[in-house]
């Protein structure tokens, strides 16, 4: 089977070994060092519930050695300890408890101020379950699969298998997930036999049994993500049966965390499943009938069980040679590196027994995190998770009941036992005495005690210690308080690698226009603008600006939102949604339109074109298209309007042809329809351009003569190519967003969202002219009436300066901030820096000059120039 490399030492691997069993067989007793006091910790629960066997495997820290199959060549490193786990000089902390009291960091390093940053550095370097690798290849992405089943059973023990078999037999689609292998944790005996029988029955009933899979949590839906087995499942079950069983109760007594102290099922698993002797000479502390099974498993592997202490009723059937110690209780485990003896309190007095193992089986705490986080989802518990300590028959019956749709059963939480001291929380090294101190300091609720002491907050999420913490509070509080409840159970139920959680999360969708490949061929620098990939520049943006101002430029506007609005109430809809007049718009005419929200604030802008038959074409900004569609539909829906809103954005391509030579170019390529070279402002028309049917819109966004050609998306390439070829001698070239930014700025046209604030109404933007307040009703009208009754306190202005203007800088006047520059560019044409920004009125008047990052700027009217044509 090969060997593990454990801290550089070879460790033999035998069939069926986990990393933990192989290491233990090879003589390893100290598996980790504890967090604060650097105490030695050894195997304890062997069921994935405690932190004692967390090791680093092949560079990945925090791996549970007891649940991880051993394989040849694995490199295993134990965490904690300096210079090593075996020889840890930091263990001196264990002798300095008084200097590491609970709440230590709250009370210390307060003065001087820099003390904390030094201390923090030191703390951070030694904390945690190990060091995450930060180099090397990232793990492969984990595939995702959505699954729908009738019944999801979590846990492949007796109750879970019974539930699955029962549900499967009734014809339901059943998925059972088991963290390890079904039966894999069980020593030979009646439980393992029953599990084998039920597993057979379940498989025959068509149950899908998925091993090595962990349920992450039970979320609203219900949704149960399941990780493991090289893929992540998002299971949507109709019903959930939680059969995650119980773990033996964690007892708190002095020395309870020494290597050699075992939970009964852990010791039995090591002996019965892996054939490894947990101890040579063991004492068993029993309060459960199950403890007798553990005694048998231990003896079979050759461990000498010297004594069993517990109630008289349990001790009647002990094998020969095992001393019964009636009503004996362990008060202390003693030893330097591991258990060397235990001290008992018996009715006859104190006793000390030499041994190298103490096996504890006092009761069970349900492994019920999943159940408790289920809220009011259709989840029901079965078996030990709801009835800890139930018999085999009871567990099976409970599973079958759950399958039949039994009511959720209440969880009973074992009452934990607290000694005078001892470790309550193994992960965080919190002792019973620490809880006492915190209590005395005035911290009195479970949640604050938890946070202040950090008990239950480690990697095992309180699986073992939460009941002990609850018991502590219950023992001290006035009985009226409802505070003895256990801390909240939060997902994930077990620690899960982020790679598995991230499975199948969507990459950010990316939209392309029909001209994408053409932009690439022209060497464009493409970037994301919202969801769209758009060309920012093809070469020198100054040259692109010049082309538009002096010749002709082409811009891909296939990203603009375009909506066909039709139906009997089409006119009513646009009249309500837009604040301009719409009823006087004749077919073939268009108008600049603002859409306001109910607050009167500008939501989007575009062009409204009246078509024949009472239909309209409305454009919107590229980023605003989805919202515009939702908004149109909302108003139509609430107003009960019979109207069809067709979002044609992805159906259509769009090319803007702009510049003084645009008319010449268009005249060359128009095949049918009106002369697009002399389309007046506010007009639109249908035409066939270079063989492509287009709707041409005269627009003003960049200034000068400009026409948008909207057409079938599939024809974009043909149209674009034809325009470039036909315009070659005119100096036609493509331009991108960088040039557009300068062009629209010279025109004084704000970018919504960049130059505007969310509470800009049309008046603040100088767009009051675009509002027909005399219309009786439109969205935002009442708000505008209210807003416009007040004096204007802030507005969008143009600024002009000789020095460079830095976008984002505040406008300052006499040292006070009175506004902010939101756009800026150097306009070659104007020979000056220009910008847009918002400005506040000072004493009722708007300043005429402001300073912008040290530069003096004049507040000027916009547009900065009427750039030709028009």
């Amino acid at each position, binding site marked *: 089977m090969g060997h593990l490399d454990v801290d550089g030492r070879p460790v033999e691997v035998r069939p069926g070994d986990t990393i933990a069993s192989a290491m233990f067989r090879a003589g390893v007793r100290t598996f980790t060092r504890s967090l604060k006091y650097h105490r030695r910790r050894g195997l304890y629960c062997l069921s994935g519930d405690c932190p004692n066997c967390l090791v680093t495997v092949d560079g990945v820290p925090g791996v549970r050695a007891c649940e991880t199959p051993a394989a040849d060549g694995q490199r295993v490193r134990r965490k904690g300890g300096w210079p090593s786990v075996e020889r840890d000089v930091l263990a001196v902390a264990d002798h300095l408890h008084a200097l590491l009291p609970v709440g230590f960091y709250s009370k210390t390093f307060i003065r001087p101020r820099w003390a904390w940053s030094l201390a923090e550095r030191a703390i*951070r370097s030694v904390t*945690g379950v190990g*060091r995450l690798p930060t180099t090397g290849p990232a793990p492969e992405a984990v595939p995702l699969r959505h699954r729908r089943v009738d019944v999801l059973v979590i846990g492949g023990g007796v109750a879970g298998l019974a539930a699955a078999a029962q549900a499967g037999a009734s014809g339901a689609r059943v998925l059972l997930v088991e963290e390890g292998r079904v039966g894999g944790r069980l020593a030979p005996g009646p439980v393992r036999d029953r599990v084998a029988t039920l597993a057979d029955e379940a498989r025959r009933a068509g149950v899908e049994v998925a091993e090595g899979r962990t349920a992450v949590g039970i979320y*609203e839906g219900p949704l149960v993500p399941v990780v493991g087995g090289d893929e992540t499942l998002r299971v949507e079950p109709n019903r959930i049966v939680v059969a995650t069983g119980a773990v033996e109760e964690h007892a708190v007594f002095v020395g309870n965390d020494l290597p050699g102290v075992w939970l009964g099922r852990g010791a039995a698993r090591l002996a019965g499943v892996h054939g490894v002797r947990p101890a040579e000479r063991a004492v068993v502390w029993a309060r459960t009938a199950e403890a007798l099974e553990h005694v048998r498993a231990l003896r079979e592997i050759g461990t000498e069980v010297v004594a069993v202490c517990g109630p008289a009723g349990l001790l009647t059937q002990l094998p020969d040679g095992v001393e019964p110690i009636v009503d004996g209780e362990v008060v202390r485990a003693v030893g330097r590196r591991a258990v060397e003896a235990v001290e008992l309190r018996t009715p006859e007095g104190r006793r000390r027994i030499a041994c190298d193992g103490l096996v504890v089986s006092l009761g069970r705490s349900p492994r019920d995190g999943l159940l408790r986080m289920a809220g009011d989802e259709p989840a029901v518990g079965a078996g030990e998770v709801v009835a800890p300590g139930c018999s085999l028959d009871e567990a099976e019956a409970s599973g079958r009941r759950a399958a039949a749709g039994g009511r959720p059963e209440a969880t009973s939480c074992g009452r934990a036992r607290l000694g005078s001291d001892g470790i309550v929380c193994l992960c965080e090294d919190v002792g019973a005495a620490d809880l006492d101190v915190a209590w005395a300091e005035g911290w009195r609720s479970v949640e604050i005690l938890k946070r202040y002491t950090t008990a239950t907050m480690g990697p095992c999420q309180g699986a073992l210690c939460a009941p002990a913490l609850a018991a502590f509070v219950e023992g001290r509080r006035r009985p009226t308080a409802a505070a003895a409840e256990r801390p909240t159970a939060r997902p*994930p139920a077990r620690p899960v690698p982020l790679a598995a959680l991230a499975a199948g999360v969507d990459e950010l969708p990316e939209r392309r226009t029909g001209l994408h490949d053409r932009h690439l061929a022209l060497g464009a620098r493409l970037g994301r603008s919202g969801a769209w990939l758009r060309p920012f520049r093809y070469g020198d943006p100054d040259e692109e600006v010049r082309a538009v101002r002096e010749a002709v430029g082409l811009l891909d506007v296939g990203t603009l939102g375009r909506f066909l609005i039709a139906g009997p109430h089409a006119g009513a809809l646009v009249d309500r949604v837009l604040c301009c007049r719409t009823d006087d718009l004749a077919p073939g005419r268009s108008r600049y339109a603002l859409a306001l929200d109910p607050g009167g604030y500008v939501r989007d802008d575009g062009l409204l074109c009246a078509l024949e038959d009472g239909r309209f074409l409305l454009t919107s900004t590229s980023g605003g298209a989805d919202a515009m569609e939702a908004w149109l539909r909302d108003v139509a829906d609430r107003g009960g309007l019979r109207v069809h809103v067709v979002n044609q954005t992805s159906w259509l391509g769009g090319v803007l042809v702009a510049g003084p030579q645009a008319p010449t170019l268009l005249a060359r390529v128009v095949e049918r329809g009106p002369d697009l070279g002399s389309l007046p402002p506010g007009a639109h028309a249908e035409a066939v351009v270079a063989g492509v049917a287009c709707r041409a819109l005269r627009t003003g966004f960049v200034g000068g003569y400009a026409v948008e050609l909207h057409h079938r998306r599939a024809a974009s390439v043909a149209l674009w190519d034809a325009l470039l070829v036909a315009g070659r001698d005119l100096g036609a070239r493509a331009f991108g967003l960088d040039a557009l930014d300068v062009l629209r700025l010279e025109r004084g046209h704000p970018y919504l969202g960049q130059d505007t604030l969310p509470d800009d109404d049309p008046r603040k933007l100088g767009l009051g002219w675009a509002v027909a307040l005399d219309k009786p009703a439109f969205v935002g009208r009442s708000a505008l009436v209210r807003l416009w009754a007040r004096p204007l306190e802030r507005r969008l202005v143009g600024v002009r300066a000789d020095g460079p203007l830095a976008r984002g800088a*505040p406008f300052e006047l006499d040292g006070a901030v009175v506004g902010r520059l939101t756009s800026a560019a150097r306009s070659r044409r104007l020979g000056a820096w220009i910008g847009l920004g918002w400005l506040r009125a000072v004493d009722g008047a708007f300043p005429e000059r402001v300073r912008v990052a040290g530069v003096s700027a004049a507040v000027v009217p916009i547009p900065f120039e009427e750039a030709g044509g028009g």
Partner: protein
Amino acid sequence: MSGLLRRRTFLRPRELRGGYDVVIVGGGVNGLSLAYNLAAHHGIRDVAVLERAYLGAGASGRNTQVVRANYNTPETVPLYARSLELWRTLSQELDFNVQFSTQGELDLCHTADALEVERDKALLNRAFGVATEILTVEEVVRLQPLVDPSGGGELPVLGASYHPPGSFARHDSVVWGYASAATRLGVAIHEELRVVGLDVRDGRCRGVVVEGGRTVEADAVVLAVAGWTSELASTAGLALPITTHPLQAFVTEPYAHVLDGLVSSMDLYVYVSQTARGELLVGAEILPYTTYSTRSTFGFLAEASRRAIQILPFMARARAMRQWAGLCDMTPDSSPILGASELDGLYLMAGMGTWGFKGAPIFGRSMAELVATGRTPALIAPFAPGRFAADRMVPDAASAGTH
């Protein structure tokens, strides 16, 4: 270290009396900061803080511990800059280590638009003396070599803004620190006492009604109950411009220190830091819908995991250990509401979105001045409850809803 062996009592139970000068509803970081500041700076010690669960049970104990001043409006930058100043000496002021640690905040940009917004922000910040600078990709990698400049091969980093004063403080410790300092000064703190309504008589708020029907009178009542402001205000007939949204976060198992400071992405809406305990703490933006449920969603855990891996690939091997959700008051302009309500005697510390934690020192300080003197400090004047009717919003959505 001298304080170590000294026995200390941080909280002490007190009998609830029938009246106080000031009653503060909500034992979170803001309510406690106000109580402390009233007692410490204005000599008003007849103050009761009423908390329905345990101290810090709400948003205070659920936030992601980020303290910063790189905001995006001329009103918010100076406010949080002043708060940051107070944070620096808070441990000493409260004689309680709130674990304040300045490590810097790196905000990655993967789109030109985001980078432009960050550039704007940096300029505005510097105009107010707040250090924020723009880094190139090369500078980003030099500063934080764990960042994947290719954005998972999908969304390359174009640059970043870097805010050196970006800091953390342990959220619970801040709550406990304020609580213990206030207790020392005589403030009465009552846990597990639910306020069920406001006592309004003759057009004035005269106190609160607690569970069981008992009235506790006060000259001034302050609501500092993030998430639940609307519900309590409605008992006095007050309707507010507030909605309640959940914000989620998760931590991984603790690991030895690898990551300094806050690393966030302005385009992927995720941010990551490593706590002093070693846990990697991952947060994202608020959910868009309103809810009072603090149940976590898997969608958040999965999405945030993926986005975190995308900017910090080493995170792929980390194991998520615990996720949770808290409630945020959101306002129409994403800025807090601080000031006197339209109902005499009732004050609001509300609408804090995701900013309540970082603002707590200055919010408490300023509101104490208002409650004690009746004068509104200039720093919080723009955040008055009446600003919506006056058309004077402080829109800072670009900074809201994340860390």
